[in-house]
Structures are given as structure tokens and as C-alpha cells.
């Protein structure tokens, strides 16, 4: 691990000031950052511990619930407000990582975990456009069974691994980012960026900015929402495909739909084509299948990951069917 100096911030303003130095990084749970520092991928010169910041509250505010960025995954997953107003968020968290990691990892840190693949983590593979911009991508013609079929570029096809990010992207969550110039707000669905030619830039967080809150707006489709994750084993594994879905159904018709896909894309994938295909329709397996087709027609396979296109469709159809219940 590269040497770094360590400061423990007590106030948000002090954290942002320390975190604005060149090569500074914030650390909360550390479950992703410390691991990547150990394997030499992350090399911060300054580490700013934000665990003491008073940002762990979960509360009802006007129009929705507000979750402090330092709230731990396990606490958010079991919180009554979250369970009641956006069950997909709780389910996504409980499908994430292990109980130990969920006890340590913060909500803000979960959204900030690196988009990554095995080549990114392994320095013995020289080419990785995320680690060394311009060096190439070992995955595109390599072992890419776990990689993305949506949102990839010639530079990078690594998937964003967060389940939570998929749920909050689906449910129109808004992130508050605090920086040297105060607060700004960004839609969760727009926070993560496509790799394009700059896969090293994964999100819209400027250096020195800190995620302080995640706001989840009240909505009927959030109240009736769910998260389905398909993986190689039943627990403690990344998604091969996942779907966060929310439906508002009245009078036998879908009034509003929210869908995001995980495990198949380079960023939490808000599936707006699939959503549009559902509006005004009566829930049925055929309607759900058509919605899945509408989104996945943009998928691009890379050898070993072609199966993910059909898997994502079936995952979405099943998630929507389970959610619609007797209505489908």
C-alpha cells in the first residue's frame, strides 16, 4: 500500500477542506477503498476519515425520505421508513455483499464504489483504460463473462457493481453533494457516467465534493417496488443481472413505471424505453416481455457475456410479474 497521511474529520466543512487537497480521498466504511489500496489500484496521498460526520440519520422530510450518506447499508435496509416507502431500496441492500460488509459500508460509499472488473483489480494486466488511460482494455477480447452488454465503449465494459445504485436510479432519488462552494443536487440516475473515451471518470462528483444525503421521493411506484438479483450463487455475489422495478397500477392499467437494471451495464441503467413500453398497458407477461425487448435491443455482446441479454430480459419479466402479482 502506498503511504498516505490520515485525518479524521469532525465537521463536513473540515472534511471538504481536507478532501480538496490533490490526491485526497474520503474513506467511510473502507470496504472498497481499503481493498483497492491494498492491491495498489488506489493510491491516495491523503485519507480523510468521514466516519464521525453527523450524517447517519434517516428521516422523513417534505415529499420523501432523506438518508444521511454515512448511514450504514444494514441500518438503511431495516429502517421502517425505507421498508414502507421504497422496499426496492431495502431489498437491494439486503442482496448486497455480506452482512459484515453491510455493517461497515456507508450509503455514500456504496454509490462511490469503483466500477470494476477483475482486470482492473489486477495490476499484472497492464492494459486497463481505467487504471492507465489509453493503455487498452483486456476484457473486450478477454474473460468477459461478468461484463456489461449495455453502455459499454471500446475503452471499457466493466459493470457498476452496486445494487443500491440501481434501486435509487429507478426511484428518482436525488443526491446532495457538498463541496467548497456549498451544496448542489444531482439525480441518482445521472450521477454515474458512461465510460465513453474516459472510463477513469465514473461519476459526476468533483474533487473535494462529498455526498451528504440521498433523497428518495414519495411515489406510489416507489411504495410498490422490488429488487430482483440473479447471481451465480444464492448469497454474497455480484449480480449477473438485476432489476429494480416500481409500478403504479390502478383500474387494471399501469399508470407509472420505474425500472433500472444492474449487472448488465457500465452504470446503473435506468431503463426508460422499458418504462415507456408499459405506460397505459394492462400488466401481462407479454407486455413485460415487450418492455424488456424494448430496452435490451440496444445490448452489445462481447463473446462470453452474450447470455446476459436474455438473462436481463427474463430477470425483468420475472421482477415485473412478481410485483404485479395477481394483476399480471
Amino acid at each position, binding site marked *: 500500500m502506498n503511504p498516505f497521511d490520515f485525518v479524521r474529520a469532525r465537521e463536513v466543512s473540515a472534511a471538504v477542506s481536507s478532501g480538496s487537497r490533490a490526491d485526497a480521498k474520503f474513506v467511510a466504511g473502507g*470496504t472498497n477503498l481499503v481493498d483497492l489500496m*491494498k492491491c495498489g489500484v488506489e493510491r491516495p496521498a491523503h485519507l480523510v476519515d468521514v466516519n464521525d460526520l453527523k450524517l447517519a440519520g434517516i428521516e422523513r422530510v417534505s415529499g420523501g425520505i432523506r438518508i444521511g450518506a454515512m448511514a450504514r447499508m444494514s441500518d438503511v435496509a431495516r429502517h421502517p421508513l425505507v421498508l414502507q416507502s421504497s422496499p426496492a431500496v431495502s431489498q437491494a441492500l439486503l442482496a448486497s455483499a455480506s452482512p*459484515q460488509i453491510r455493517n461497515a459500508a456507508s450509503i455514500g460509499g456504496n454509490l462511490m464504489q469503483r466500477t470494476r472488473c477483475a482486470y482492473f483489480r489486477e495490476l499484472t494486466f497492464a492494459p486497463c483504460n481505467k487504471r492507465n488511460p489509453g493503455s487498452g482494455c483486456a476484457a473486450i477480447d478477454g474473460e468477459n463473462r461478468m461484463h456489461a452488454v449495455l453502455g459499454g465503449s471500446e475503452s471499457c465494459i466493466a459493470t457498476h457493481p452496486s445494487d443500491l445504485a440501481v434501486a435509487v436510479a429507478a426511484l428518482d432519488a436525488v443526491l446532495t453533494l457538498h463541496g467548497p462552494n456549498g451544496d448542489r443536487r444531482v439525480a441518482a440516475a445521472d450521477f454515474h457516467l458512461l465510460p465513453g473515451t474516459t472510463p477513469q471518470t465514473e461519476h459526476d462528483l468533483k474533487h473535494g465534493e462529498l455526498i451528504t444525503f440521498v433523497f428518495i421521493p414519495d411515489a406510489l411506484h416507489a411504495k410498490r417496488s422490488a429488487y430482483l438479483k440473479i447471481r451465480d450463487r444464492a448469497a454474497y455475489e455480484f449480480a449477473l443481472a438485476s432489476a429494480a422495478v416500481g409500478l403504479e397500477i390502478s383500474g387494471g392499467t399501469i399508470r407509472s413505471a420505474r425500472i433500472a437494471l444492474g449487472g448488465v451495464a457500465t452504470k446503473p441503467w435506468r431503463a426508460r424505453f422499458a418504462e415507456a413500453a408499459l405506460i397505459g398497458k394492462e400488466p401481462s407477461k407479454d407486455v413485460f416481455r415487450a418492455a424488456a425487448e424494448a430496452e435490451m435491443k440496444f445490448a452489445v455482446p462481447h463473446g462470453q457475456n452474450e447470455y446476459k441479454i436474455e438473462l436481463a430480459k427474463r430477470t425483468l419479466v420475472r421482477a415485473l410479474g412478481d410485483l404485479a402479482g395477481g394483476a399480471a
Partner: protein
Amino acid sequence: MTLPPCYQPPDDDPDETNDSPSDPSRRSFLISSATVTASLLVAPAFAKPANHADVAADPNAIPVALNVNGRVHELRLDPRTTLLDALREHLNLTGTKKGCDQGACGACTVLVDGRRINSCLTLAVMNSGRKITTIEGIAANERLHPVQAAFIRNDGFQCGYCTSGQICSAVAVIQEGHAGSDDEIREWMSGNICRCGAYEGIVAAVREASGRRA
């Protein structure tokens, strides 16, 4: 054979004089034998205790107060030291195991402020002032914790390497109320891998310790 990069004998650090293990442990013996073996087998240049000198003179070392099993240890640590390495290499609490060292196996599970975490994925400095419980602090003096006793009765291990992590995790699973069924135990113990595959015994031990009958 080399010493772990963070190893520092307790005697070298005046802050740690109260923390020497009460008996010469198997580990101290193994480390001494390893050093002797290394001195005998390889060139003197290699046998120089370079690691010790580096750590002792480390200008980056900062004060860290670790409250482990009810006792506060005032240490000076390189901030790169993980909680796991601090426990094992600086406090000689080697019951906590290093398996994968990347959060995938759970062998390093400890309780921090009553919650189970992977000690390999957190830095020791981040845990200053928090209450840490390791496998050495699970039993009440000489009386085994009910989960420890249940692991013995139900044969919840084979080689034993993952066991301290399994037990720390199991104590938490029961406290969390996640031992309601065998399926629930399997799900909530899924952060602890057993390469020997002693899962049947582990589930039985957690079930028994939770007071539930099969």
C-alpha cells in the same frame, strides 16, 4: 520465509510493554524459529531485521488507541495498518485469522461497537476509540460462550481456520435475530466461507446456540 511486513515484537515498543502475551505462545515460537531458520539458511543481508527497523523508525506512525476486549492499547501505527494486522501483529491476538485479506471469506470477522465487520477491510486508525471484540474476548473468563460450546458439540469445523470468524459472526447473527430458520442462518452466515465445508455443523451450532430445536 519472510516476516509479515507489519510485524513488530511487543518488546520493541515501550508503549506496548503491558501488552506482552502472558505466555510464550505457539506463534512467538514459530516466529522465533522462522527468524532462526532464515538466519541459518540465507545470506546475512537478508537476515537483517529490515522490517523491524523500518517500522520502528516509521515517521508516518501515528498514535492509535485500540479498545480490544475491554482493554485500551495505546499504539503507534503506520496508518496503512489494517485492524486485522494491528490485532495479529501488534497485539498478538492471533485468534482473528487472515484468509483472503479482501473481504471475501470472513475469517477476520470481529465485532466493533457490537456489530460484526471484516477487520481486513478497515484501517486500525479508523477504529480508534471504538469497542472491539475479538474471538479472545467472546468467552466469559474460562467459561465458553454458548456459541463456542455449540460449535464443539456440533462439530462446526474441520481444520478450524475459519472458526473464529464463524463464531464471531454467529454471535452477531443470534443477537441480530437472524437465526429464525436454517435458511435464514445460511443467508446471514454467508459472509463466512468454510473451505472444509463444515456448513451442516455450523448451521446446527448456530441453531442450537439460538435456543431453537431442529
